[in-house]
């Protein structure tokens, strides 16, 4: 009975999550609650008044590895969190699929890679991923202090896994944050996210 109840609740959640209340630039970014790799519950609303970056992640994906092996993603995390931005790495890989990690594995990875997001959110059921309709790793979202989505798309303008493409790339996340913080309109507010498909549960 209990099991059935949970299954029914999951079906309802999935049905509610898929249709398009997803994240559209200019709209209010949907609030969420998720648990990070230290067991801390995080919500979007708790960061009201701050810029928030969401970074979809899969440590085995070559497009993600391009950013991490070059140190580029860590550099962005460090630079922007230093400037008061909340940076949330999100892992929506289902158990058994590429990129799935336990909390301990993720903490080991962050340490090994010198990654410094504010938190790494574990989303093995894919509900946060579906809420934002995250398609790829990486897929980046930027939310302003008023809670409005101001960027949805790729990390940069170099859709290739080639590590040589990191140098000289135009980083859309840094550009959106720079422009928004200067009170300017974000010049590129959407782009096609490129990368591996998010490894949602079947």
């Amino acid at each position, binding site marked *: 009975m209990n099991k059935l109840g949970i299954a029914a609740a999951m079906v309802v959640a999935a049905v509610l999550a*898929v249709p*398009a209340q*997803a*994240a*559209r*630039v200019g709209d209010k970014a949907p609030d969420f609650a998720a648990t990070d790799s230290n067991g801390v519950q995080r919500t979007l609303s708790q960061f009201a008044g701050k810029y928030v970056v969401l970074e979809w992640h899969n*440590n*085995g*994906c*070559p*497009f993600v*590895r391009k950013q991490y092996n070059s140190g580029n993603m860590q550099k962005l995390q460090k630079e922007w969190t230093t400037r008061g931005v909340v940076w949330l790495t999100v892992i929506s890989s289902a158990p*058994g*699929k*590429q990129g*799935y*990690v*336990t909390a301990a*594995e993720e903490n080991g990875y962050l340490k090994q890679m010198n990654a410094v997001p504010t938190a790494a959110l574990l989303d093995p059921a894919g509900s946060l991923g*579906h809420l934002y*309709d995250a*398609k*790829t790793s990486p897929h980046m979202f930027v939310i302003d202090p008023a809670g409005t989505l101001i960027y*949805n*798309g790729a990390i940069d303008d170099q*859709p*290739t*896994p*080639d590590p040589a493409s990191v140098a000289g790339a135009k980083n859309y996340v840094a550009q959106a944050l720079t422009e928004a913080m200067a009170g300017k309109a974000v010049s590129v*507010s*959407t*782009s*096609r996210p*490129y*990368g*591996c*498909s*998010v*490894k*949602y549960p*079947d």
Partner: protein
Amino acid sequence: MNGLVGTVILLAAASAWAGAADSGRLKVELVSATGSLQPGRPLLLGLHFELQPHWHIYWRNPGDSGVPPQVRWRLPPGFQAGVLQWPAPERLGSGSVIDYGYQDSVLLPVELQTPGNLAAGASVTFAAEVSWVVCSDICVPGKAELTLTLPVRPAPGERSPSQELFQPALAHLPKPMPPAWKAEAKEEKDAFVLTILGAGGADASFFPLQADQVDNAAPQTVTAVPNGLRLTLRKSELLLQVPGSLEGVLTLGPGRAYAVSAPVRPLPGP
């Protein structure tokens, strides 16, 4: 356990990038439609990919994930390569992430312009640096340096061992829409309604050329209208401005693919 599997996958990815030509997941070859080339006459070459079961590569608009294969040519003086041509793709993936690409095998044709001053009897070598991302449950990038040598002959006639690959590939390239057909699109709040008068068939799909116009994962509703058909295409979340036209490929079943350019009638302004 999971960590171990991850390590093996990462090593495989690294070695493929270092340059293995036959990655075990796909084989790629530079092929020619003819066994020789004639000075000053166009030459048809192709990139032939053969994929292991369950692996795919991507169309020019890859859809929600992935990237299309790329080629960088190294050609002798006087030769010029055209753009890669893309046979109609298929919808791949499931759920909220849908891609456009190819499984099993695909030939991407490309036409080369040749110089007129080549001596008969000489031979010419073409080199192509090809890169790709091949995916199943995971994605693996790859790269290969391919070469092909052809003799220069005054007249055609020499057979190419790859000749039979070209006929089906050319048949799957999108054709121009017949002049009697008419394509137009109407903007609705959440969708574009694409009407194609002249076209028929229940098995219609639209593949957009641009990445940010149509929601790839949304089902495409096809309805018959008098003397034509109508597809309802959900708008992409990434779309910020109504495009002047929808550009794409309409498929109506095997071997029936048409290049479509449909002017968009926008919603009346506020």
